[in-house]
């Protein structure tokens, strides 16, 4: 019984995360989570390091979302980004940029 409890909690958490993902609403514009991250200097550098196909896909999604927002529309439901299909494409590059920045700061202190 004790081994079933964490699985139930885990399913509950995933269910909540999925509900929250849909409540956020960016998927209705065809955006992924990493498309909505605010562009500070670290994020700008991470975007610069994206492979070209990934960058082009990002720009397409953002342009489409801006157009939909301007027309006060959303995509048809079958085109909404699904929770299972969303992946943090920017995260590895962002973590790399932040790691490099910290390393530079540590080096500058010496």
């Amino acid at each position: 019984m004790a081994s079933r409890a964490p699985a139930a909690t885990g399913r509950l958490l995933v269910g909540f995360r999925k509900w929250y993902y849909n409540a956020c609403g960016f998927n209705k514009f065809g955006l992924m989570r990493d498309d909505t991250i605010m562009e500070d200097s670290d994020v700008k550098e991470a975007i610069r390091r994206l492979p070209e196909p990934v960058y082009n896909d990002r720009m397409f999604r953002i342009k489409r979302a801006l157009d939909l927002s301007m027309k006060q529309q959303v995509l048809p439901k079958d085109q909404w980004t699904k929770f299972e299909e969303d992946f943090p494409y920017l995260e590895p590059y962002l973590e790399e940029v932040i790691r490099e920045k910290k390393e530079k700061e540590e080096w500058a202190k010496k």
Partner: protein
Amino acid sequence: SGVWNFGSLLGLCLITQILTGVFLGMDYTSDISTGFSSVTHIWRDVNYGWLIRNLHGNGASFFFICIYMDIGRGLYYGSYLYKETWNIGVVLLLLVMMTAFVGYVVPWGQMSFWGGTVITNLLSGVPYMGNTLVQWIWGGFSVDNGTLTRFFGFHFLLAFVIGGGTVVHLLFLHETGSNNPGGVNSDGDKISFHPYFSYKDLLGFVIMLLGLTSLGVFSPNLVGDPENFTPGNPLVTPPHIQPEWYFLFGYGILRSIPNKVGGVLGLLFSILVLMVVAILHTSKQRGLTFRPVTQFLFWTLVGDMIILTWIGGMPVEHPYIIIGQIGSVLYFGLFLVLVPLGGWVEN
């Protein structure tokens, strides 16, 4: 979206106020013996003076509707992250408030006199030089002729200071470009100002001018105080001294703190808190479009401001005192604690 129209609408409000104000200034006399009657003269004798005065008085209300909507847009969509533009905007808000305050004293009605007396007296809370400062502002030992003449001068001058501040505000905005409802980078999707935004702004102008003219013609005293139809009298105190509706939320905060200096600081910080919003931004997303938890907190803030506005117009007695105090704590709590916490949780 439509909420981006309020910037250009504020420009239109400023031009309207300056134009109507200049025409009012041609017939107004800033002396306590003739000030009130010169306004009556404008109303009754000057060609379309009644309309110019209506537009100027109600134009001030529309100015504040537009400025509060502009700030609300900035808070909701994270436009405050354009820090220079935002901080100049807060300075402009303070200037507009000062202009409206001194402008309300100009007609020299009962509420002009007593509202001016209450608010200028708050400066006596400044340590050591408080009383000297108040008498310096008054130009005498009470709100009197010296006060009226200089307040009229300040009112005229500040309008053009606001104009200059607006130019600087726009200069900084044009360095970055506008934000958008998605809070995403729109550099790859720009469209020309004309015809898209010229016609959009023109539609906004038509709607606002229609609203202003309707209010001025059909119901010009809807948001005014009847006490201001009585000439200012230092020997007769009105039972309920209160400012115009756009200052009531601050008045509610001021009166909630049972200490003069504390109340003044509460009033001051209720505006200056806007300057720390950018520093307290914790979310990875810019705006609230995709953040349901913080959206709830934003609308709680709007509701709180409506309650504080209501409280500011009520007498200082139970249960309005405790409601005002809870509202004031919630106001600062939302800005300083709850919204940053919401952003962190939603990360």
